[in-house]
């Protein structure tokens, strides 16, 4: 490929590939996200290839076939989408492929057993955009994911890729920044700091060298939108960074990616190489005289490196410890030079904001939180996966309309947002609009957008202990409140869940929360108390039940529960007694079984294998 050296050449190239596309070609799109690949998407893609050839047809001539990034509905993978018909098939196996080709590609019928069936209404829906999971979404950051092949730059260019860059390069840097400011875009990584303001501060610092960086060290447990964007639409991140680099006056960009995301690294590397070959990166981008390039750096599996100053130390090849908050990275960031660090999703929004304008973007969302946000809706909900919705949607709409309600018809208890730095919002508060400011006011935070749904079988003390345990492991150990305060809190929470809680524990926890909030060095430490704070705020009675009554109302905390078998439900199938690692379940075939509680280690195997829901937890 000869590098493109002008805007006219880029448009000419776009027209050329557009013209070479066959209109209305029946096409198969196979999701190649991590989830679908784990469920066997590779074998499905091979089966399509084989079947098409077997029928004497040609890929690209009679039938289109491509693999794409994540559609978000990972729960039901492998997903297969048919275009232009807009049909979605779920849980496709290689043995289904011949039937799909014959019925839905060569003819115009639907394979009924593979389409979506609503668990609540039992209604079946074939059309992709009519399924509740997709119907209420507005996909901006995820605009291309699932439509383009992440390994094909042509595919990205066909979807108006690099149009935003071409437009930005005709503008003055200050005007680009003004546009980003006007769009109201706030950082999608957790902090919610206005992106335009950050860029302007960086540009204002007098320096010959500046850097732009992309934070792809997505560490919040329960969130995976950045992974999906880097894997499924790497060019959108790259294009956003080039625009950012031009606007703030940087020549070098860095993408810091989690080591746990090998596919993201692979797809980004391929996309960078293509972008260089096409002249979007390197010397004189698109012939404008602006030089810019991007390097990838793999993280080392340390959660704290998602914190901005720690990330920069790690990029420099050092131990990733944060530094005091009063030094701003827009002034002294990477190598002590003015730097802009934005999250993957933030960068991915930039090209369309440039292309469609700030007003268009700001027409979505609420007064203080513009645009859309990608959430990972996971936990005890029927439809789990990635969803992108306008800011301001309520928690209840997310859980009930898009998520299809709670798994197994259980009771909705709470959602946890914001990762380990966030908090829990109870069902009673779930008409709360989801935006930066409302979540903070409710004692949680947006974080990177993980929405973890909890049902009546979730113990809130256990959840608090879980997050504090996570933070104990991930604390870098530099400042005392975080290094010593967290283990202390963890010990108290462990005691409570083990039945050794005592009066006054809640007050001690609250005091420790305050110390952490006000005295810790970095954002990780100062927000670390949120999980405890918010669960005490909304679920104090559950803490009290553990401490006073030595009971875990949700039936989770091992020391406070016992397993037994409900004789009225037990059919005497003997499965549990065969699987019990302790051999402590006895009973005659076809007779109710009994657990010897003195030997039971409460491992839960019996409950997992029982087909009759006869194992009770009290």
């Amino acid at each position: 490929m000869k590098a493109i050296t002008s805007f006219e050449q880029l448009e000419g190239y776009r027209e050329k590939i557009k013209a070479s596309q066959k209109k209305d070609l029946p096409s198969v799109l196979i999701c190649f996200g991590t989830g679908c690949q784990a469920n066997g998407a590779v074998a499905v893609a091979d089966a399509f290839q084989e079947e098409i050839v077997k029928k004497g047809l040609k890929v690209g001539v009679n039938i289109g076939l491509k693999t794409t990034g994540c559609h978000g509905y990972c729960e039901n993978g492998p997903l297969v989408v048919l275009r232009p018909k807009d049909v979605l098939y779920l849980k496709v196996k290689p043995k289904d492929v011949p039937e799909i080709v014959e019925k839905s590609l060569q003819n115009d019928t639907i394979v009924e057993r593979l389409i979506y069936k609503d668990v609540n209404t039992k209604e079946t829906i074939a059309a992709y955009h009519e399924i509740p999971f997709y119907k209420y979404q507005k996909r901006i950051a995820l605009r291309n994911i699932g439509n383009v092949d992440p390994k094909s730059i042509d595919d990205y260019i066909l979807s108006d890729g690099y149009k935003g860059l071409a437009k930005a390069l005709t503008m003055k840097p200050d005007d680009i920044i003004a546009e980003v400011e006007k769009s109201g875009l706030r950082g999608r990584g957790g902090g919610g700091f206005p992106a335009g303001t950050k860029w302007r501060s960086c540009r204002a610092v007098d320096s010959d060298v500046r850097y732009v960086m992309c934070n792809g060290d997505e560490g919040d447990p329960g969130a995976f939108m950045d992974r999906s964007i880097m894997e499924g639409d790497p060019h959108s991140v790259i294009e956003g960074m080039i625009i950012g680099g031009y606007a703030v006056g940087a020549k070098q960009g860095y993408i810091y990616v989690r080591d746990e995301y090998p596919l993201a690294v692979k797809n980004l590397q391929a996309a960078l190489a293509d972008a260089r070959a096409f002249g979007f990166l390197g010397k004189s981008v698109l012939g404008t005289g602006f030089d810019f390039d991007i390097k990838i750096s793999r993280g080392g599996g340390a959660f704290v490196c998602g914190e901005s100053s720690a990330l920069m130390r790690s990029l420099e090849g050092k131990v990733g410890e944060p530094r005091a908050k009063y030094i701003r990275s827009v002034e002294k960031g990477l190598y002590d030079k003015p730097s802009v660090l934005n999250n993957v999703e933030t960068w991915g929004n930039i090209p369309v904001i440039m292309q469609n304008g700030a007003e268009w973007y700001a027409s979505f969302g609420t007064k203080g939180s513009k645009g859309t946000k990608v959430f990972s809706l996971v936990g005890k909900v029927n439809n789990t996966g990635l969803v992108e919705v306008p800011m301001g949607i309520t928690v209840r709409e997310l859980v009930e309309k898009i998520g299809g309600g709670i798994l197994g018809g259980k009771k909705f208890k709470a959602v946890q947002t914001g990762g380990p730095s966030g908090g829990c919002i109870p069902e009673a508060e779930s008409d709360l609009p989801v935006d930066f400011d409302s979540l903070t006011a409710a004692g949680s935070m947006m974080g990177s957008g993980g929405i973890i749904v909890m049902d009546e079988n979730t113990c809130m003390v256990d959840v608090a202990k879980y997050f504090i345990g996570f933070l104990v492991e991930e604390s870098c150990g530099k400042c005392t409140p975080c290094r010593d305060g967290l283990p202390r809190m963890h010990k108290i929470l462990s005691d409570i869940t083990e039945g050794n809680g005592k009066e006054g524990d809640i007050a001690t926890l609250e005091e420790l929360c305050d110390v952490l909030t006000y005295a810790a060095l970095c954002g990780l430490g100062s927000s670390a108390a949120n999980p405890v704070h918010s669960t005490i705020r909304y679920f104090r009675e559950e803490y009290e039940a553990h401490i006073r009554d030595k009971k875990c109302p949700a039936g989770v905390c091992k020391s406070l529960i016992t397993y037994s078998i409900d004789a009225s439900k037990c059919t005497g199938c003997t499965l549990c007694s065969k699987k019990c690692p302790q051999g402590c379940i006895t009973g005659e075939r076809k007779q109710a079984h009994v657990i010897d509680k003195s030997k039971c280690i409460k491992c839960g195997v019996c409950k997992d294998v029982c087909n009759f829901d006869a194992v009770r937890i009290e």
Partner: protein
Amino acid sequence: MAGQVRKKVDTKQIDKIIKSYDKSEESLLAILQDFQRSFQYVPEEGMKRLSKYMGVPESKIYAMGTFYKALSLTPRGRHTCKVCMGTACHLKGAGQILETIERELKVKRNSTTEDQRFTVESVNCVGACAMAPVVVVDEDYSGHVRQSKVMDILDKYK
């Protein structure tokens, strides 16, 4: 260095990895990660050679080796079994899955079985939350794992 198991390592391979990067401190973490991929751990010899090549004190490289979770200073098993302990997995019973693996393989989390077959690790979110609970063996993801079926997954790895 304490705890380091002395084992003959291929010094040519070490040098090859080091030389494939720019002579810049920026490359330190990437080189250590390549050691990890190549040898399943970061060998002492590797850290020594890296220190000499880059002109960076050994202590600094050792500090990185202990700070980053992706790096291990002791040899690992033939297979790495990661049990995801992300929030979604935790809610869906990942703890019980990990306990089952520990019990069946007679190994504690974050250590290696005696026969060197598995290194069992608990990890904080692999980013596949929609399939929770998740177990990753080497590079293979398994989702919706059930406590009673997890050993069937591990049995495939010898």
